[in-house]
């Protein structure tokens, strides 16, 4: 089957804090036969501003992102449920009734989260491998509840040694700027999650959203835990990427 040419939107956090996830996403997409373009003007989707209520700032970033993406063609693939949800659901709402509405709808209809794209759109049959590690998977909320992604990661992880994680579908306490504005509450929720990650017996925590993962990894480091934290793309990429 002919694989499409896709546009990779890595997200601002991956770009500046975790570029290895972007390289892994790129490698996965190429390994399943997609051509990958990278719209170089991409910056931030605007979600941080949107989530604190600063709508004008959010619109400014969203408009920029729309301009960048609308100049391209084919699926836009994002290794983050949260940013995907922003583009798919919030952009059309943000620009409803404005001259950008059409553009927002056009781009949102092309935008897909990475696991969703690999499983639902390509039915690629690809599975993750982890070289003998045991894996706990944390479902990030915006992918899970915002986009309805649940089985996609399960399918991708079917060949790795999975450790059941209690409350895998409960929030990790990140919540974007919530983690900075209400850090003690955020950390208390995180602690419960990390207790469960540790109790799962897994040596590797996997997720599909780098934002939650940075928060959890930062917390694990503070505990002195040696549990590794990785994005699912890193387990899907061919070895050596």
């Amino acid at each position, binding site marked *: 089957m002919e694989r499409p040419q896709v546009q990779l939107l*890595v997200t*601002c956090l*991956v*770009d*500046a*804090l*975790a*570029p290895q996830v*972007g*390289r892994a996403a790129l490698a996965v997409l190429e390994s399943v036969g997609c051509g990958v373009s*990278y719209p*170089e003007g991409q*910056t*931030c989707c*605007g979600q*941080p*501003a*949107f*989530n*604190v*209520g*600063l*709508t*004008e*700032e*959010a619109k*400014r*970033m969203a*408009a*920029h992102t729309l301009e960048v993406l609308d100049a391209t063609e084919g699926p836009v693939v994002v290794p983050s449920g949260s940013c995907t949800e922003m583009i798919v659901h919030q952009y059309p709402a943000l620009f409803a009734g404005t001259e950008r509405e059409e553009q927002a709808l056009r781009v949102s209809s092309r935008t897909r989260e990475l696991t969703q794209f690999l499983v639902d759109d390509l039915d690629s049959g690809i599975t993750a491998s982890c070289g003998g590690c045991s894996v706990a998977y944390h479902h990030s*909320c*915006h992918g899970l*509840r915002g986009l309805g992604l649940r089985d996609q990661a399960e399918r991708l992880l079917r060949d790795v040694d999975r450790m059941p994680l209690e409350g895998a579908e*409960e*929030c990790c*306490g*990140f*919540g*974007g700027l*919530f*983690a*900075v*504005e*209400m*850090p*003690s*509450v*955020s*950390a*208390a*929720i*995180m602690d*419960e999650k990390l207790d469960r990650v540790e109790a799962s017996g897994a040596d590797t925590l996997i997720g599909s959203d780098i934002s939650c993962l*940075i*928060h959890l*990894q*930062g*917390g694990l*480091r*503070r505990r002195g835990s040696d549990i590794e934290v990785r994005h699912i793309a890193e387990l899907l990429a061919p070895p050596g990427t």
Partner: protein
Amino acid sequence: MSEPVSFLTRAETLLGTDEARAVDRGMRRMSASREAVMAELPWSEELRDRARSIRLHALSHLDRLLAQFADQITERGGRVHFASDAAEANDIVASILSSASARLVAKSKSMVSEEIELNRHLEAQGMEVVETDLGEYIAQLAGDTPSHIIAPVLHLTREDVGQLFAEKLGVPYTDDPIALNQVARERLREVFLTADAGVSGVNTAVAETGSLVIVTNEGNGRLITTAPRVHIALMGMERIVRSWEDASLILEVLARSATGQRLSVYTNVITGPRREGDPDGPEELHVVIVDNGRSDILGGPTAEILACIRCGACLNICPVFRTVGGHAYGTVYSGPVGSVVTPGLHGMDPWWDLPYASTLCGACEEVCPVRIRIPSMLLKLREVAASEGRLPGWLEKGMARYAKVAAHPSRWARAKRWAHRLSVLVSSRGWIRRIPGPARGWTRYRDFPRPVKQSFTEWWRSTRGS
């Protein structure tokens, strides 16, 4: 900006306490029951769709339904009073009670009465008010406020209750729930028999027959609405549905969502006061329909929140509520629904920070029996708060600058380089242990990764670049 006690301040006094642990345990138990009993119904999703449309229908026909409801009650010999705000509602209740020379008032659970602080008002007029819902009774004895709309003393353990009863009621200490229940039963029995008036809430009002539906698990609602001479029912003006068919569907999702029961133990239907030949029932029935800010909500961006049936499922599932408990919200309606309702009823001042007390995880919307889009309403209120200039200056200015930079890829690239360079001051081996400035809260509890030297964009450009 005035600086009253914030959500965060209240939350921090509760974090990690026995109270918070008791809340977390209770909430997980209630959520699990809800899930089990909803899973019994293969059509639970359709049921929720119907419940939603019933409630939205009621909201969009509120004036007509309330008029019909009032006519029906009047026709059956009851009295209807409309109260525009808390003060008026309190005055109406007080004047009904004083015309009836009532001294002892027995109450069943009513969130509206908490909202308008009815007890305080009546007590100031020399009346004795006794809560008869077990949880509310305990809260009243303890001088405490309810921390959950369904389970008011969820934050207390049975040991707490045992000590309270020993201290306030002079009974020997026990933490056996059955024995404690028996103590409360005996005390309350006397109140049921001697009260001059009963004040109740209303779970659902039925427009077509003018009926009030009150559900309880303890039977206290039935006693206080039948034994005393006068029954006063308090209801928020939104608590109405069109028909019996609608009401029965709402009751079904209410019990399942609230307590994980198929139906509450007692479902009381009250249609008018005692009629000739009735063996019991009050001589007078008064229904006080309370606005108190609801009309404002109805005309605003969060109108849908009035579809709430007060089941509490969103509290039970909320990671923030579970972690801090209801008292952190500082108000009667807590948790996700409360964070929308409270600023709506009482204004953004000082409640504007409640909509920020959420991770926007969406679990509330996922369990809501009427599918209220709570996260998007929290976002709408955040938008209002931000537009009123309530955000801290660093956040507002910082975000404006961030947006400006993010709208220009070349500035963005420069900013990333600077972030990497500057972070050398606070980083060690790729991680930051202490962020200075307003984002310091992050590193109070977690490390933060150092911005990389070569961003993905730069890597792409150098290896694949056109």
